[in-house]
């Protein structure tokens, strides 16, 4: 297990006195492998930024230890950690031009001037800041400052790159391109990066694995695909995915042949028992009151499905979002073609057992994903 480049073990962060102050990060353990891009994802106050700042050395680790490249770094000054950072508020050097800001860290290395300038040119082109290289930080826009700060960090050959909300201020037209370019740049140089973001689109686009945080706790740490297919609980299930997962309260009943989930308004979903493993059936029957979740893109139309009334059909150019009324609340479908259903039309929706997530209603923890236990 010690092949992690960055290893965070049982780390707590208190603001104020240990065990008394604000408990911002709670017993966090996670490892990042060399060459990985990892996102810390959560809403404000979830502990993601405190975690990043402890790794950077801007905050004291209250308890536990952080190891980077085989060395415990808890008490190492930030400059000695060989970590490159693009932080909000970790501002550019005002007296230096954009070019010199980006090149700054390279000047202390053995690279010759020609090599430095070609690397600056490469990064500047990637981030679309080639035309402002001779300007000074005070005369460029906030979005440009953010890109310069990102360039200054990415250009370095550090053990670890820490990126705080790296694309928060970019105009939407640039985002898709820059996401692809930055991911390619990080991967082709074999860099290891941790980014902090509240934007799941950014986390999904850039990272190999996402650490979902909430209330100082690490809720789930998995690949983007895994988070969607096997959410550990209702929190991740509904937090990850856009549009979010459809969730309904259900009561479980079972006969020899079939298992039935009864939603509000007596709407029921029945499956042959063989659609699930016996362990899933047992767990669901034992809980009796559960929540079921279905991803919007996993819903299919088809005969003999649940008949629902369409309440909205919104075409966004490359996706259609349809909301239909099921058991007194909207269920959302995503289709990639343009659908022509109008409000008050009826549609038949099928929910395959393979796409059904069952959650414990009281703890929120996942019981099963598809046919198998979570």
């Amino acid at each position, binding site marked *: 297990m010690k092949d992690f480049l960055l290893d965070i073990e049982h780390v707590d962060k208190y603001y104020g006195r240990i065990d008394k102050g604000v408990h911002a990060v709670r017993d966090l353990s996670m490892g990042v492998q060399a060459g990985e891009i990892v996102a810390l994802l959560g809403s404000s106050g979830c502990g993601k930024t405190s975690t990043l700042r402890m790794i950077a050395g801007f905050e004291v680790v209250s308890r536990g230890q952080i190891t980077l490249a085989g060395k415990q770094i808890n008490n190492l000054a930030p400059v000695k950690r060989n970590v490159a950072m693009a932080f909000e508020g970790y501002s550019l050097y005002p007296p230096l031009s954009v070019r010199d800001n980006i090149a700054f860290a390279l000047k202390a290395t053995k690279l010759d001037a020609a090599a430095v300038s070609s690397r600056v040119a490469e990064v500047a082109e990637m981030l679309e800041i080639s035309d402002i290289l001779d300007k000074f930080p005070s005369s460029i826009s906030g979005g440009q400052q953010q890109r310069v700060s990102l360039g200054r960090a990415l250009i370095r050959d550090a053990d670890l790159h820490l990126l705080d909300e790296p694309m928060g201020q970019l105009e*939407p*037209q*640039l*985002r*898709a*391109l820059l*996401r*692809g*370019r930055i*991911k*390619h740049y990080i*991967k082709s140089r074999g860099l290891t990066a941790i980014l902090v973001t509240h934007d799941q*689109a950014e986390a*999904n*686009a*850039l990272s190999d694995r996402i650490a979902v945080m909430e209330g100082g706790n690490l809720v789930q740490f998995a690949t*983007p695909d895994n988070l969607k297919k096997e959410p550990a609980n209702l929190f991740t299930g509904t937090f990850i*995915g*856009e*549009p*979010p997962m459809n969730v309904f309260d259900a009561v479980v009943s079972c006969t020899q042949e079939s298992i039935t989930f009864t939603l509000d308004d007596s709407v029921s979903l029945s499956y042959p028992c063989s659609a699930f493993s016996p362990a899933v059936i047992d767990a669901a029957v034992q809980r009796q009151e559960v929540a079921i979740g279905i991803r*919007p*893109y996993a819903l299919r139309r088809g005969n003999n499905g649940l008949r629902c009334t369409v*309440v*909205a059909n*919104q*075409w*966004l*150019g*490359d*996706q259609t*979002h349809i*909301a239909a009324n099921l058991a007194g609340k*909207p269920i*959302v479908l*995503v289709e*990639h073609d343009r659908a022509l259903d109008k*409000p008050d039309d009826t549609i038949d929706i099928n929910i395959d057992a393979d796409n059904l997530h069952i959650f414990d209603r009281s703890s929120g923890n996942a019981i099963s994903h598809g046919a198998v236990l979570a």
Partner: protein
Amino acid sequence: MSSLEVKGVTKRYQKETVVDDVSFHVDTGDTLVLFGPSGAGKTVLLRMIAGLVEPESGQVFISGQDMSDVEAEYRGIGMAFQNFALFPHMSAFDNIASPLTAGRNSTSVVTAGVEKVARLLKIDHVLQHAPRELSNGQKQRTALARALAGSPPILLLDDPLRNVDAKLRFEMRLELPQLLKAQGATVIYVTQDYKEAMALGNRIAVVNQGKIEQIGTPADIYLTPASIDIARLFGDPVINLFDVIGKQDDQGGYIELSGQRLALADHQLEGVGSSVVLGIRPESLRFVNPDTPGAIRLTIEAETPLNEKIVTLALTERGREVLVSRPAGTSAPTHGTVFVAADPQSLLIFDSTEGRLTGASSVNKTEVAA
């Protein structure tokens, strides 16, 4: 219920023309979205319709009646503006109830009306709070609820979901049209979010620098954007643009991209020089076998998933960047060399000087003229 028409409306502040000869109509019960960047003149336009700002020239008609001499409060208009404008000394409940209590409604009618709209906007739990105790998103929804509560025949909504978090924004985007439809109101809705514009508008007016640059259904705007600028504002990931040379032979007009001939429809090269800009939406490119006619060879740079889509950034042999988007869950190569082909109907050609769409359907033009 009322229709709304704006005819040749202009507004200047000092020497700056902020709304420049704008005309459009909205049929009874329809929603027109005003879409554009900040400073485009959208809010001033709304204020002129509401009667809060007097136009330099031009008129506003409601159900065919000229409103020039009608005071704001007699125009039958409900408004929710960006800066909330809630009464600070009144609870959220009383703010929402204000248009109802102005009439002669009984207390129970008022309470029922407020609670119904508050439930729909998910602020029923904060009705007793004063505005200063509400989050910005809640303030915005309170302002929206107040606009809806009086069931005015015309509603002017200025970016009402702007400060609402992403999840609630999505839910409200789905629910708002039902709400508006149930009210039967004629709506003008201002937003800077293209998804909201497409989801909520029967028609969208793209506004820039005080002028309407294109007006049409969401499909008109997305499929036949009048200009490169408009094409870039609608769609995520952004449309691919390539400088290419338009050519003509006995089989018709075509352009070449990465050595492949892409045939164009009639008229697409009419009236433009040979240098043109080709626009291809990322979702109009499909991964295909190498032997597919017109297949373009690309090298994958990176794959970036985005909201149930997978976006691939790839390079042509000459190093031009191409974004390709496909539904999540469909398989495709993730690295190395791939081939893509474009759906022929999806190719957009813009002239390279003005960036205007060529060979556009006449629908948009007649709409603007009318």
